[in-house]
């Protein structure tokens, strides 16, 4: 593989600008060869009217998309990031919605399995957010305004009554206690 193509691959992998020295170290080529190959690569993108642009920024070289592709990129990426919730995400979100503020250890206890990745996705999608720390130092979560909008709710009061789904409505125990008991039973099963 020629130097220009190797540099293209390295630039593709890095989201940060890469210095010519670092590229020379990685490819084992001379610095002046690297610089002239980078120049050729830049011209290739430009003259062939490719979708990528190679620019020298902040003392390094970085690939980015051509500005002409931006409208399409916006349509592709800015579409509401609302894929269907996985069962793990739905369980985690339900626990946060009904018990907020609630800590991650509590969520894990109720589910009987770790909730780390589900919580991270819900955070990234802006459905839940941090709400301080519990007395034991665990991060607490609550739902967001975006959550209400995406579920078409005016307020948390409009969440379905737990009793609608409650297998044992005659039990008067608190929702939190009941969930923790069920979680422990699952973990022991």
């Amino acid at each position: 593989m020629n130097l220009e193509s190797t540099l293209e691959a390295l630039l593709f992998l890095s989201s940060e600008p890469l210095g010519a020295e670092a590229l020379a170290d990685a490819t084992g080529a001379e610095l002046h060869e690297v610089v002239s190959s980078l120049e050729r690569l830049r011209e290739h993108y430009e003259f062939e009217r490719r979708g990528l642009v190679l620019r020298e920024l902040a003392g390094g070289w970085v690939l980015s998309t051509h500005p002409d592709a931006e409208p399409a990129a916006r349509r592709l990426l800015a579409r509401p990031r609302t894929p269907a919730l996985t069962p793990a995400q739905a369980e985690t979100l339900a626990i946060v919605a009904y018990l907020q503020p609630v800590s991650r250890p509590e969520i894990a206890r109720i589910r009987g399995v770790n909730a780390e990745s589900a919580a991270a996705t819900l955070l990234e999608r802006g459905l839940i957010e941090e709400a301080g720390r519990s007395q034991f130092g665990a991060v607490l979560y609550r739902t967001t305004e975006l959550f209400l909008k995406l579920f078409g709710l005016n307020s948390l009061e409009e969440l379905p009554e737990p009793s609608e789904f409650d297998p044992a409505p005659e039990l008067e125990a608190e929702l939190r206690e009941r969930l923790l008991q069920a979680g422990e039973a699952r973990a022991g099963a």
Partner: protein
Amino acid sequence: MRIADLELDLDVFAGPFDLLLTLVLREEIDLLEVDLAEVVIAYIDHLEERGELELEAATEFLVLIAALLELKSRLLLPGEEVEELIELDPGEAAEELLARLLDAHRYRAAATDLRERLAAQEGHRFRSAPLPPSLRRASLAQAGAVYDPALLGRALGGLLQIPEPVDVRHMVGSRVTVAERLAYLRALLRRGSFSFDEAVTRADRVTVAVTLYALLELYKQGELDWSQDEPFGEITIEPGRRIGVLSPAGTSERLTA
């Protein structure tokens, strides 16, 4: 080592492992009376003596012992299924064990295939630069109702379900004695240190309590030392350094009489 050559010395049986297997299959020995944990410990002792671990043989052993454990657990359950199992002739039971072995072989081969596939992809790297955070979530201004709140109610309802407790009324109450647990703990101690959790893996509450009592007894006699770094933390147990300092005539015999 061939699994068949593992020599066992159990309460109900002394001889090679494959003979035990055959006798169980022919119902000349009641599986319910075989302490499978002892078989496992004998196997581990055997491995340690030889100082080597043959993966092939170890896997075969693990699969066989797991099959026996499952057969045994099914024997403990009430109902028609048991009748069926008890009437299972040795040939059929052996077929079941064979099927388990073949399954294990099959998925080990599939695992090798997957590892080769992953290796063949070596060198293809994907770009993982993150999108700007604003593109990672729906914008609040444009968000509309796309999720049904009933989804949350259903998830919560599912979490409120307490699973059916396993019916164990038919099972003989456990008759664990301090003497048994003392012998078990001494066997563990001969191999070095271990944690309390390891000593009571999958044990019921009575066994845990009796084990703790046996531990206290061994501690009192200087046969073990234990440590716990924090409340509710792991309890590490190791052979005591005071053996022989105290009177060898411990109280355990009296206790277990």
